[in-house]
């Protein structure tokens, strides 16, 4: 981009906002394709076909790929193209180990800082999750589960924590989506969530943090077989 100074600068400085949004939209669409497995782990990203399908030009597309690379979802190999990243067992374990500590802190801060309405909202998400569990409606349950963890991080009101949590959760999305849920595993996860709700109702931050950390380390046992 050409650097300009002076008054012209003031006038044109409005333009790039739109471009930023476009780049975000492309990144978001590509992210979904990876999570849902349309773009398979290990496969090469066909830039020409996707640019065509999304109806965008190459510049925002490549920027979007850089964003996804930063999130750890794809790997950009100079002059060899971009591939969807396949997570190794060790990487998934590492991520859950870090996420456990981040959510421990998040749970503690959430109880200290969340407004009563935000606690109610979290409990409402929880109740909806339980209803979906009882109906064995897996996909919407999965989505609300992700939302619950994101919202706890958000109400911690720690910008760094929100960023780290979102970053790791996004890398794990695909794994948790395909995670081979056996009925017992699902029941155990729901039991953990009941504990979280109990701690939230009691406003017990350290307890909520502990339960969330344990829950994530148990998630390893639940996804291990699918790796």
């Amino acid at each position, binding site marked *: 981009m050409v650097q300009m100074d002076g008054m012209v600068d003031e006038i044109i400085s409005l333009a790039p906002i739109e471009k930023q949004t476009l780049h975000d939209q492309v990144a978001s669409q590509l992210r979904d394709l990876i999570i849902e497995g349309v773009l398979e782990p290990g496969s090469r990203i066909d830039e020409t076909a996707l640019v065509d399908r999304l109806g965008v030009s190459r510049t925002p597309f490549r920027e979007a790929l850089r964003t996804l690379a930063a999130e750890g979802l794809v790997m950009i190999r100079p002059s060899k193209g971009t591939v969807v990243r396949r997570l190794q067992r060790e990487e998934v374990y590492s991520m859950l180990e*870090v996420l456990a*500590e981040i959510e421990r802190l998040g749970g503690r801060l959430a109880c200290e800082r969340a407004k009563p309405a935000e606690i109610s909202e979290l409990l409402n998400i929880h109740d909806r999750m339980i209803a979906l569990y009882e109906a064995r409606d897996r996909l919407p349950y999965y989505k609300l589960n992700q939302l619950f963890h994101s919202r706890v991080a958000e109400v911690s009101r*720690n910008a760094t924590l929100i960023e780290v949590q979102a970053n790791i959760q996004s890398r794990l999305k695909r794994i948790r989506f395909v995670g081979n849920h056996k009925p017992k595993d699902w029941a155990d996860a729901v039991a953990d969530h009941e504990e979280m709700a109990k701690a939230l109702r009691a406003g017990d931050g350290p307890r909520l943090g502990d339960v969330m950390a344990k829950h994530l380390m148990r998630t390893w046992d639940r996804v291990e077989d699918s790796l």
Partner: protein
Amino acid sequence: MTITSLAEQIANHLRREILRGKLPPGAPVKERDNATDLGVSRTPMREAIRILAKEGLVDLRPSRSPLVARPSLREVKDAIDVLTALEVLSGQLACRNATLKEIEGLRQIHTQMSDIYDTADPLDLFEVDMSFHLAIAQASHNALLAETHQAYLARLWRVRYLTASLQHNRERVLDQHATILNGLETRAVAQVTAGIGLQLDGLVESIAQVLKHEDESGSVS
């Protein structure tokens, strides 16, 4: 030389200029001027600025020169809370996973720091100090943890450098490093996490002082 390594060298140079206050918070980092001064082309310069933006040291602005970041105390506090959690986890995992060679490496950093403490350039000393923390995260044998720790430590680089210079206290820093190191050698988790806690304890207060002082002395706005 590849563009990447040249860009990294330029980023190192600019980072040190920022830490030394030659480029104070709020100052524009002019791509063209800096490229001319350093005798490099604008492509690696742009890449270097991107590296610094990722570290949170500069804020990019559309169609204008990026500015040296001026994080608020709130942002810094948030980052320290997270960094503390990451360092404590690093210590716990390093107790379990660090190899003898890695512990020996930490011992060498500690000795080096002790040797140069009274004579070294403050910025050089600070870099050795931070390399101790980075090495502990590496010794956790959790790659994501090491990577995340490094990224967020980078964001706090400037304020930590300023507080380290302010609290130039040989005994305090070296004692804390020794506590952590001995704890790792004997695989004593409680001792390691206590040592790490001491290091980060009081950091928020010191940083509050530094930022207040900076606001009052009115650096570039």
